[in-house]
């Protein structure tokens, strides 16, 4: 069996794990980052895309609000290219308790979240689709953040700075324990079945909602993470250009986030026992559409593109009774198992939210350094990520501008997301994966209105010709993508999106007859 040794093994390739890898790499530590699937395939890639200002928590959870606004300011500097500065609004709709607005304004003052009350008429001029009955409105520095881009920038940065090994599709199948020390883990490449033993001075469990399962593997009991499942619906248009929150206590369906070419409505909160539970209930979809109507009248007539579920990792103190997952703290939890269980070489970080991933990583690597007995200061608050060196925010329309400069040079593979053939081929060669869904996350391939109807045959053909895949592998890649896409569309198929889905069926099942490829 292959083996390697490192200073830090990070299990879990979401924003937190990748953040830990980047932080540790900047502090000069050797790092291996492993995920059972693609990087950012779990919770980090399954949220609404909001970079919190903290406004959402100013009344309910002031500590979380303070963390958010501090991290918001830092990320705007160090991860500028991953962020679109849309700004945010909290608006009191006719469905909201009008008394909350004053508490909200007071909460912002108390927690230091920048907040300016504006005239509803002014807001309606800027965002004419919003409910005309808005009575109060507050501007806050919400923004959107592209999690896939962020996580890959973190991983790439870690690799560039200290040669970090990035291992997607490597599941931890065993945590090595020698007496009162964790000494690393056995990883299995889920694509090939090959195993790899990683010996690490410290192992970081950054698996979010799965943290309890990984801690169990290390023989450490009582790490309880309560997964809270929420659905999000991406609408085919930027119904708003500013993040819009309902000005009320946090609840279901209270936010609409414009990101890239879509806007994302979120979210629900249902307790689940299984973090891999990706159920989308009909009632949840209906409730979300209803909530959309309260913010943007006519929301139900707009085209829904895709629905997905994310599981929040909410750490639970086993001694307390918790009725609803929304009442569990959104703040993160760091478990230094040397202090907690007397087992060295192992640290668990869970809970929290994407906006605070950097802070979580900093605290985690501080704990790692304590365990190593080394004094290495954190620099992630000032070091810019690869791609963000210029400190300029992403602008909607960047891709179109680049494309227009080179219209005659290269063919488009995906019209919806303006992905060129050279870009796709370069990504395919670099990533060395034959999972088309990975390119969806990396390039937004197949994310537009046609949901891959036109680009997926092209992408499969291109991948087959450059990657030396067998026909079976290429077919599997295409069929896998079609199933993954279907998972995200069938619960919200109505209106034009149903029409689109049937057109796609026409192409794949009719013209190409992929359902009857020789198996």
């Amino acid at each position, binding site marked *: 069996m292959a083996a390697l040794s490192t200073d830090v093994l990070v299990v879990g390739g979401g924003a937190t794990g990748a953040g830990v890898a980047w932080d540790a790499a900047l502090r000069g530590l050797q790092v291996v980052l492993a995920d059972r699937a693609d990087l950012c395939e779990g919770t980090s890639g399954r949220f609404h895309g909001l970079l919190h200002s903290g406004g959402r928590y100013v009344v309910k959870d002031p500590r979380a609000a303070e963390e958010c606004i501090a991290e918001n300011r830092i990320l705007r500097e160090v991860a500028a290219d991953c962020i679109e500065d849309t700004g945010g609004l909290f608006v009191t709709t006719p469905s909201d308790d009008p008394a909350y607005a004053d508490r909200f304004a007071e909460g912002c003052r108390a927690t230091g979240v920048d907040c300016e009350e504006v005239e509803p008429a002014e807001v309606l001029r800027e965002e004419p689709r919003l409910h005309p009955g808005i009575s109060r409105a507050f501007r806050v520095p919400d923004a959107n953040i592209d999690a896939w881009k962020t996580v890959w920038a973190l991983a790439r940065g870690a690799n560039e700075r200290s040669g970090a090994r990035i291992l997607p599709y490597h599941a931890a199948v065993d945590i090595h324990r020698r007496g009162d020390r964790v000494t690393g883990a056995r990883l299995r490449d889920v694509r090939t079945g090959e195993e790899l033993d990683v010996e690490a001075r410290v192992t970081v469990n950054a698996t979010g909602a799965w943290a309890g399962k990984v801690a169990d593997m290390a023989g450490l009991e009582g790490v309880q993470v309560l997964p809270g499942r929420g659905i999000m619906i991406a609408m085919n248009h930027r119904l708003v250009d500013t993040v819009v929150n309902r000005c009320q206590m946090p609840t279901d369906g209270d936010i609409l986030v414009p990101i890239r070419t879509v806007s994302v409505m979120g979210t629900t909160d249902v307790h689940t026992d299984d973090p891999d539970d990706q159920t989308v209930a009909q009632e949840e979809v209906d409730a979300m*559409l209803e909530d959309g109507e309260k913010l943007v009248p006519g929301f*139900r*007539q707009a085209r*829904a593109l895709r629905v997905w579920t994310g599981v929040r990792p909410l750490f639970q103190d086993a001694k307390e009774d918790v009725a609803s997952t929304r009442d569990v703290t959104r703040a993160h939890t760091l478990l230094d198992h040397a202090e907690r269980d007397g087992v060295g070489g192992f640290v668990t970080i869970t809970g929290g939210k994407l906006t605070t991933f950097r802070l979580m990583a900093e605290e985690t690597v501080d704990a790692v350094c304590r365990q190593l007995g080394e004094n290495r200061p954190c620099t992630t608050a000032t070091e810019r990520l690869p791609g963000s060196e210029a400190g300029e925010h992403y602008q909607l329309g960047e891709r179109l501008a680049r494309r227009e400069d080179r219209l*005659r*040079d*290269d*063919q*488009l*593979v995906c019209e919806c997301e303006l992905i060129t*053939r050279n870009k796709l081929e370069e990504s395919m060669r670099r990533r060395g994966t034959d999972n088309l869904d990975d390119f969806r996350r990396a390039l937004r391939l197949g994310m537009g209105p046609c949901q891959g109807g*036109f680009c997926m*045959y*092209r992408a*499969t*053909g*291109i991948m*087959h*010709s450059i990657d030396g895949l*067998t*026909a*079976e592998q*290429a*077919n599997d890649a*295409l069929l896998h993508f*079609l*199933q993954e*896409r*279907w*998972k995200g569309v*069938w*619960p919200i*198929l*109505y*209106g034009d999106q*149903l*029409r689109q889905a*049937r*057109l796609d*069926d*026409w*192409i794949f*099942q*009719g*013209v*190409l*007859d*992929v*359902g*009857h*490829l*020789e198996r």
Partner: protein
Amino acid sequence: MRPSLGYDVAVVGAGVAGLTAATRMAESGARVVVLAKGVGSTHLAAGTVDVLGYDPDRVSSPARSLPAFVAARPDHPYSLLGVDAITLALDWFAERIERGPQPGYRYVGDLERNYLLPTAVGAARPSALVPETMAEGALGGGRPICVVGVRVLREFHPTLCAANIARMGVAARGVEVKIDVDRPELNALGLARRFDDPVFRRDFAARLAPSLEGDERVGLPAVLGLRDPHAAWSDLQDRLGRPVFEIPTPPPSVPGMRLFDALRAALRAAGGRLVMGTRVMGAEREGARVTALRVDTAGRETTFGARCVVLATGGFASGGLALGSDWVVRETVLGLPLRGVPTAGSPRFGAEYFGEQPMARAGVAVEPSQRAEQTENVFVAGAALPGAEPWREGSGEGISLTSGHRAAELVLASDGLAAAA
């Protein structure tokens, strides 16, 4: 509002079903107008006539499999239409194409056996009637195949296509030919126009010939000419000295456009009228009779009076049916009663993409006469009929063609038209 325009029949929809019904009625002397939002199914589909491809295993002879298929599915359109009607419709269709504006271009095949032709991904798709330009691609033995693509055409990937063909026991390989074009991409229609040009063909054949081996036959994307495809195809066969066949591409479908052009020409030759870019906004009624359609044409409302209406608007893909976010299904033109719609609370779709999709079978409720329920003079043809899963069964064109062909006869014999005569 402009004064009413009076027709015997107004056909809504210009896909295979609508054009077939309209042409046949016009040929019988009826005054017919086809109202269509845009082009229909033809430009999306492969251009073949698929009657029954899967039941659920691959069907080798529709004639042999249809009786049992129909007996097991009383709600299927073929049960309504009857198997004999299919043969009549296919014969009628093949004749119209031969008489069409593309000299020498014709369809071959019948219900006795399905052609098994490769798709652009290299799957074997069963079709009853196919353009002659595709027929040499029949799988199941035969000469080895060289699948040829051009990089500018994104809808065709020869190596993947060939690799899948090879898995079915037919030797196949893919090659790419470089052609001189001044742009990085060209769609099937753009390429077809170039293949109409003999100079382009000569140059193409000269570039391709050196890479062909042994007794290979040549599979090309279905782009061999739009105006005169028979000439383009014959010319390439002569120049290469070997059989050449077309493989359908994802849209836009050149064979579908040829089919559309041929049916439109037949309609016009018979005195029928086709009005594109129209959307039917509503109807005028007397009791259960529709007497006129109110139509939005170029932003202006016009009324088309008609004694009968043929609804050939297709299913969800074509916009003939729509599912609202309230989860209610509606027939979009006249609000007709439906059949086969999953009841509230039961699944509309399944979680497996290739699994059962109950909503796919929804359609307009009709009498055996193809007359829509609760109407006296509205007839339904094509994918708007309930009970079928065209792509999964490989039955789309068979249903559209047969139901359009048969609707013409039923309309002509109906009270609505007899009263007018």
